[in-house]
């Protein structure tokens, strides 16, 4: 298939037609912060972190929703991009318990990585801290679900529903009360979850993790 030629941060890049700018950049080794994007899947476009500027476009756009276009000139850095990214990240951090030392995702947490990339303090005080104190579901022998940590990226739903066809996990409530929950509000152990762990693998933070204690 004919490759599309575009430039990202001055680097000439060839990408296949229909590819999204985000993955074209990542494949070329150019990092753009992102939490919810999955290659080849209809963009969830929820985390609002992967903003880029494309010359000729009046506003920054999300790289996960933009298809590569011939001759496009893309910038992944700039004050408008960074402002939106930092605000989005700080909003997420304001609703996220910063308990990294005890978190199963410590050191491989996307929030940590992005905060370091964007030079944002994990304990940012710009917004009010809004934690929810939701019960942790550790009913399942293999999987622990801590909705307090969740950034609603929806990757686990994709893993459980689209990839595995199980549907043990789903969304519940809406607005800032939105959570990922075991289907029907049950405990995870009472669902069809077979403990495959794909959800934990795709979770960018420590909201879903493998139950190390019980499985060892």
């Amino acid at each position, binding site marked *: 298939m004919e490759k599309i030629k575009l430039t990202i941060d001055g680097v000439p890049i060839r990408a296949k037609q229909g590819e999204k700018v985000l993955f074209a950049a990542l494949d070329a080794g150019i990092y753009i912060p992102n939490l919810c994007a999955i290659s080849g899947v209809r963009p969830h476009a*929820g985390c609002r972190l992967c*903003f880029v500027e494309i010359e000729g476009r009046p506003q920054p756009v999300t790289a996960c929703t933009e298809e590569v276009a011939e001759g496009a000139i893309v910038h992944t850095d700039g004050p408008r991009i960074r402002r939106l990214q930092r605000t989005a990240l700080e909003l997420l951090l304001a609703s996220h318990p910063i308990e990294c030392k005890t978190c199963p995702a410590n050191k491989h947490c996307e929030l940590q990585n992005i905060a370091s990339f964007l030079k944002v303090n994990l304990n940012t005080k710009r917004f009010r801290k809004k934690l929810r104190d939701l019960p942790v579901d550790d009913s399942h022998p293999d999987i622990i679900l801590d909705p307090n940590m969740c950034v609603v990226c929806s990757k686990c739903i994709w893993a459980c529903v689209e990839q595995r066809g199980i549907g043990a996990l789903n969304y519940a409530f809406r607005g*800032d009360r939105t959570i990922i929950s075991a289907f029907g509000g049950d405990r995870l152990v009472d669902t069809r979850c077979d403990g495959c762990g794909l959800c934990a693998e795709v979770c960018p933070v420590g909201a879903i993790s493998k139950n190390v204690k019980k499985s060892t």
Partner: protein
Amino acid sequence: MKESAVKSPQETFERIQERALAEWDALSNSPKPRITIGTATCGRAAGALEVLKTFKEELAEKRVDAIITEVGCMGHCYAEPLVVITKPGLPPICYGYVTPGIAARLISDYILGNDPCPEFALGALEENELIPTIFDQPRFQYEKRILLARCGDIDPEDINQYIANGGYAALLKALGMAPQDIIEDITRSGLRGRGGAGFPTGDKWQICRDAPGTARYVICNADEGDPGAFMDRAILESDPHSVIEGMIIAGYAVGAAKGYIYVRIEYPLAVARVDTALRQSAELGLLGDDIMGHGFGFEIEVMRGSGAFVCGEETALIASLEGRRGWPWHRPPFPATEGLKNQPTLINNVKTLASVPPIIDRGAEWFANIGTPASKGTAVFALAGKVLNTGLIEIPMGTTLRKLIFEVGGGIPNGRKFKAVQIGGPSGGCLPESLLDLPIDFDSLTEAGAMMGSGGMVILDEDNCMVDTARYFLDFTRKESCGKCTFCRLGTAQMLDILEDITRGEGNPGDIALLEELAADIKGGALCGLGKTAPNPILTTLRYFHEEYEAHIAEKRCPAKVCPELTAFYILPVKCERSCDACVGSCPVEAIFSGKKGIKVIDQEKCVKCGSCVDACPPQYSAVIRISPVSELPPSEPRPPDKNGKD
């Protein structure tokens, strides 16, 4: 009935029309008196069903032979329940604020007697010698009813009344045209989407028609959810066939065979009347396979939404229709190219679709001559809040806000002063007095920071706090946010927290700057229209009423004396009528006591700031006032110690 083998659509329709006209003639020229009652939701809320019951019972008891017709919303919702009585040979007379007692009077004095009871009349509906007509009111000089033309006039549950008043003639005409010519007519008319954003309707139809797909769909977006907005509900309840006819024409034009009406389940009467209308259309062969023998087939299904505001957003609506979580998806692809079941899908608002039959019927040029160069036709508004004539109105685009509020709406009640008009709902903004001469059209309102929106318009007076108004709308968007994207899910909650602090007198000097930054980022960063426009109520109040925010933060003062934490109630000793105990009795927490010489005093510790004493104090005294900031409260005498355990 004899059926010949093959009939043209023209012949088929003429037979249907003939019967409808005959029925309508019989009704209009009946020798019996005719009583018409508005029983849309606005009428029912004011007691129209009790009035209807009284009419039925009284007529039966007095053995009067009269025709009772239930109609939809007449637009004068402020005066509901509304009744029109037509006696043969006399002009129809419209009565407002009708109670069961007035209904009984109207039967005994007017229907049985000869006294038209002018004291209860809003006016006659025809020129006459007896009673001034309702059209003498200023609102009729400015109103132009196209979408509302039949509302309140015909029985929405009788398709023949719609047909007798011009209904389905546009469908017949459209079926005789090439689909592409219909789209060109819609484009030439200049019609723009009435859901709020104002996208050119003809362009949307063309994109949908041209998009490749194995099937096409038409969706009527009736998920009206703005607080204070009831235009779409009223149209569905009062003239459902106008929307259905528009949908069939749209289906024919874009090449769709299936349509959905997505209507919220909180509109039970609208749902019921649409169901009835669909059944009647199908019975007459105006819907279904082979419409009027033309060969074109179209069916419509009603989908009841569960009332999530975000499902008015088209991609979320489609997700909901498909049985998935109702949250928006990134556009493009737009539904017109890839919508329901990934097929080209035309989504139009109720009012957009209802505009289609008149455009086809009377021509694109006729429609394009109404309104302004960039916003054609009329705008329907649900006028609510601090305005005399609340109700449903339709004015040509380009009418100024001032005319709409003060001439059509009759101005602000109780001699209060106008402060702002909230237009466009949670996505819109609050515009001040200085912008009242702004013409109502898509672009002027957007430029001013508000939005045409779907047609909700709430009038605010000097007793409304603008910070509190912004807080109210943010509370709404926070609750209605779908939770998908970071900016809307978490940003609206943060903004609401800041606003709540400000209204409680706990605002900080940096709050306004933080609100402005966050609002700009949410506007630029959110996924869908709901999120992108959610900051508008804050941005417009900050822009036009900045001093109110400052007063709340710096002086702990609520200029409108609304925010409870910043306001105290006080009884002016010089005005208090000592021996009157009205306020004492009205207080739910026994905070008011008799002080020296019987003058009433409010125990500030106990007061819950409900305002009951303000209402209870007789107007000739008006001794209870609100004071803000609380620090300006004059010292009050202490409460005497309890004598017998009880004050």
